[in-house]
């Protein structure tokens, strides 16, 4: 590990100022950043500890501001997953959180940190190999290498890494907004624009400007509680990242689907949503044929790299299954792992 300076911020303004002055990295739960520093993947010169900032509340948003629920950036994944307003109004988020990591990690990991966690690509972690995300311009060790966990959608010749989060897949279908504060003040980023595709700049995971701090995640006042599921498929039934995961939510109206939303995890550099695929379901009665047609549309343009070819068919089937679970109102259990 490299030497670094350490400073603790007492308020958001101080955190932003400290980070800007020293080109620092924010430290919250530390479940990802500390690992990366130990492996020499991240070598920040300065750490700004934001653990004591007052950003831990989970509270309703004033109806005059549109209502919904505000999740503090420093609320832990564990307290978010068990919060009564989350389990009652946004159960797909609680489910995705419980599908991720382990109880100990969820107790430490924060919501803001979950958004900003880095890929678990083996080549990103191995400093002996080329990686454009870790060392821009050095090449991609994954292309032509072992690609079991890599992207099938939206990748580039510079990077085929995936975003590892479960939480973010649920936030994508919920149309969350990310509140951030930087030297230039506060701004709000729609979730679809928060994470980015690698293109020719894979070092950037998201659209945050240097020094910007995530302060909260806003969930709109929408009701998908009756029809939702988070279906996660992985090499081990617990404590493993998704090979493919699906968040699906619906609103039903008299036996027909009024609105459906689908997001995929484990397949791209960001949670993957295809509005045209969701439109295939709007106004239709639920049926296996419709679900298969929507799944086909989501996988439009999918490309395997050898070791991950299986993900294309796996994702197709997982989407169809998740849509059936959501339509029936029988969400996937995160403890009984049998897929019904």
């Amino acid at each position: 590990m490299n030497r670094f300076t350490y400073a603790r911020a007492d308020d958001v303004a101080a955190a932003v100022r400290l980070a800007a002055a020293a080109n620092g990295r924010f430290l919250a739960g530390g479940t990802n950043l500390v690992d990366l520093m130990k492996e020499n993947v991240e070598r920040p010169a300065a750490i700004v500890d934001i653990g004591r900032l007052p950003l831990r509340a989970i509270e309703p948003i004033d109806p005059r501001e549109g209502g919904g629920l505000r999740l503090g950036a420093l609320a832990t994944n564990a307290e978010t997953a068990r919060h009564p307003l989350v389990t009652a109004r946004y159960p797909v988020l609680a489910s995705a959180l419980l599908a991720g990591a382990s109880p100990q990690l969820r107790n430490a990991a924060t919501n803001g940190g979950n958004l900003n966690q880095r890929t678990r690509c083996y080549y990103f972690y191995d400093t002996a190999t080329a990686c454009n995300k870790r060392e821009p311009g050095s090449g991609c060790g994954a292309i032509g290498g072992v690609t079991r966990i890599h992207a099938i959608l939206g990748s580039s010749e510079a990077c085929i890494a995936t975003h590892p989060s479960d939480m973010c897949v649920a936030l994508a279908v919920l149309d969350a907004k990310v509140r951030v504060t930087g030297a230039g003040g506060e701004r709000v980023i729609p979730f679809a624009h928060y994470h980015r595709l690698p293109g020719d700049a894979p070092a950037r995971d998201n659209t945050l400007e240097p020094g910007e701090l995530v302060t909260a995640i806003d969930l709109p006042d929408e009701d998908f509680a009756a029809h939702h599921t988070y279906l996660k498929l992985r090499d081990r039934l617990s404590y493993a990242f998704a090979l493919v995961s699906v968040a699906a939510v619906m609103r039903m109206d008299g036996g027909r689907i009024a609105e459906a939303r689908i997001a995929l995890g484990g397949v791209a550099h960001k949670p993957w949503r295809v509005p045209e695929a969701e439109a295939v379901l709007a106004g239709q009665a639920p049926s296996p044929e419709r679900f298969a047609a929507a799944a086909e549309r989501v996988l439009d343009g999918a490309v395997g790299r050898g070791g991950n070819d299986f993900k294309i068919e796996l994702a197709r089937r997982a989407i169809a299954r998740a849509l059936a679970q959501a339509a029936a109102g029988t969400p996937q259990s995160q403890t009984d792992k049998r897929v019904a």
Partner: protein
Amino acid sequence: LLAEGVAHTREEVREWMSGNLCRCGAYTNITDAILQVMADERSAR
């Protein structure tokens, strides 16, 4: 695990133990022990 009240069945106990180290050889017995304490506490009430 017991104090938080999140685990009631064998599947739930196994899931909430996940991520602990040093359980590879003994975890079925640990699960049995947790379920036994849970049953004892229930019958003592």
